[in-house]
């Protein structure tokens, strides 16, 4: 880039003819001009809007935005609701669900993904056929996933009914209609959708490991289990990190799946904070509270993503 600039400046016409100088200056600025709209859009529609949402969370907005600041009332309400467990407020339910869903979803996806990747990495015949089968749910919309699992888990139509017909009449599985268990059905559908992708990430990682290290360890008499525990899994650490980031941000953003699978669950018992935000903002006319919950979601994601992005962008000073 620098060499080019000097070259243009060395051309004899430069300065001699004002038009040419204008043009070359335009050429110089062109890259920035091309990037500018995208950057401006990001600044306004992402960061500007975030500030706008933060501002709204400090107002008394109900159905329509109001712009008189009234202090952190919305946050105080959320704070109170956080501890109001008897009867649990919608917010309490949402964050407890987030905890359950987030933990199980991330943990099971990582465990299952790694497990499947290790199995698939044993020189499997038909790997080319199995991999796409594990992965295809990722191409589906959460709404389709929700519709499919809603049917599958419905006590009157799906799995329970099928097993009854096969003679296992005592089988009972009504989690999807049970307010205490409905969030676990969201975990099942979520894991079904994302675990294949995590498998693909781990598989790519496994394929990148130097075979020599493995051979050396085997010659030293390491058992298969030791080999994976002591050598392979530690080597996969960067993949664990990436997969964790992907899953964490998918978990916090999850909204559609809850809507399609459970319609919010009995009495809103399957809500996540994203559903809380949507309902309070657009249906219960509590815009300030909705905004405050969105800000809390954003801060949670920021706490996870920013250190990660910082280290990723830092690592390669080129």
């Amino acid at each position, binding site marked *: 880039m620098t060499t080019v600039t000097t070259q243009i400046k060395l051309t004899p016409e430069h300065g001699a003819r004002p038009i040419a100088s204008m043009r070359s200056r335009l050429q110089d600025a062109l890259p920035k001009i091309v990037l500018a709209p995208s950057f401006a859009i990001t600044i306004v529609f992402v960061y500007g809007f975030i500030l706008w949402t933060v501002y709204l969370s400090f107002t008394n907005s109900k159905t329509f*935005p109001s712009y008189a600041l009234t202090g952190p009332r919305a946050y105080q309400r959320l704070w109170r609701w956080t501890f109001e467990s008897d009867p649990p407020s919608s917010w309490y339910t949402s964050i407890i669900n987030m905890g359950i869903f987030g933990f199980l979803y991330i943990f099971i996806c990582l465990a299952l993904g790694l497990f499947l990747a290790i199995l698939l990495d044993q020189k499997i015949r038909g790997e080319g056929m199995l991999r796409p089968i594990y992965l295809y749910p990722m191409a589906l919309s959460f709404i389709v996933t929700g519709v499919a699992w809603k049917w599958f888990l419905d006590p009157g139509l799906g799995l329970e009914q099928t097993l009854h017909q096969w003679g296992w009449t005592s089988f009972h599985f009504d989690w999807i209609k049970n307010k205490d268990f409905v969030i676990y059905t969201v975990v099942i559908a979520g894991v079904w959708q994302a675990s294949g992708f995590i498998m693909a990430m781990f598989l790519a990682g496994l394929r990148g490991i130097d075979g020599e290290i493995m051979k050396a360890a085997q010659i030293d008499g390491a058992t298969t289990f030791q080999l994976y525990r002591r050598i392979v899994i530690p080597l996969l650490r960067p993949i664990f990190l990436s997969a964790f980031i992907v899953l964490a941000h998918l978990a916090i953003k999850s909204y559609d799946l809850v809507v399609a699978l459970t319609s919010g669950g009995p009495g809103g018992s399957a809500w996540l904070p994203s559903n809380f935000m949507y309902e309070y903002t657009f249906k219960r006319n509590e815009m300030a509270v909705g905004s405050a919950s969105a800000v809390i979601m954003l801060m949670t994601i920021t706490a996870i993503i920013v250190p990660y992005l910082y280290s990723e962008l830092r690592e*390669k000073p080129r």
Partner: protein
Amino acid sequence: MSVIATPARQSTGGISARTVNRIVIYGLLALFALFYLMPLFVMLVTSFKTMDEIQNGNMLALPQAPTFEPWLKAWGETCVGLTCAGIKGYFWNSIKMVVPAVLISTLLGALNGYVLTKWRFRGHTLVFGLMLFACFIPFQSVLLPMATILGSLGRFGVTLRNATGFSFGLGNPTVNLVFVHVVYGLGFTTLFFRNYYEAFPTELVKAAQVDGASFFQIFRRIMLPNSMPIFVVTVIYQFTNIWNDFLFASAYAGTGDAMPMTVALNNVVNTSTGVVEYNVNMAAAMIAALPTLLVYVVAGRYFVRGLMAGAVKG
């Protein structure tokens, strides 16, 4: 890198440890394949059954008398809210939204990636970082301001139409969604192209500059012809994401004729009037899933690459 696969020499007696190992591994893999295939299988067979068969038969059984009726009904007759004209209109809504949104965001991403790698300026990392972070925000944090802005633009569009007879697309829900998806897709498309162009030899660009090629000439003649793979990856990624989006779609086109497919499907399934026609619901879900599934089947390799590129940054 396969460990269990290496011949176990200490095979004992009849069946060697290796054989047992292999059986267990293949058994587990097959079991999980069933787990992943089951919902799709159930959805598919149900969509070809009559209601009678659904109520009296087994969920996993193949249709006794396969009928295409539910598909036709889902496409042309089923009720979405109060209008009963099938989901075909909403399918086209999604197409009309997806095509421009994908093309615009991909092209802008290509240009951004080109600038951010080959025409670097001070602070390029910061600019990229800010754009990249935008990929990860929960969209709830911008949902409301965007709704407000789109509402004002809509009112302005009405004024404009009264004055000039043409609203310039302002207030049109499909146009709004295209705009929203371009804005919030830019981070990803820029990321894809930036990482791809990062590995592209800068010497080629420099040489072209020395030869007097302009910014756009270099982009068109040198970068673009070498960008086919990343274009495919980005287009597939954007297509899948935008087609599958539900949050923006329900917030900005949640009612009325402009609903995209995902919202319409959710409405079909949750329409509570009359008998619930599960076969029609499943057919509708299949129709909603087909475009992205098709892309996955045809270009799965690129699909996975896109997901990976979105996951592993830097």
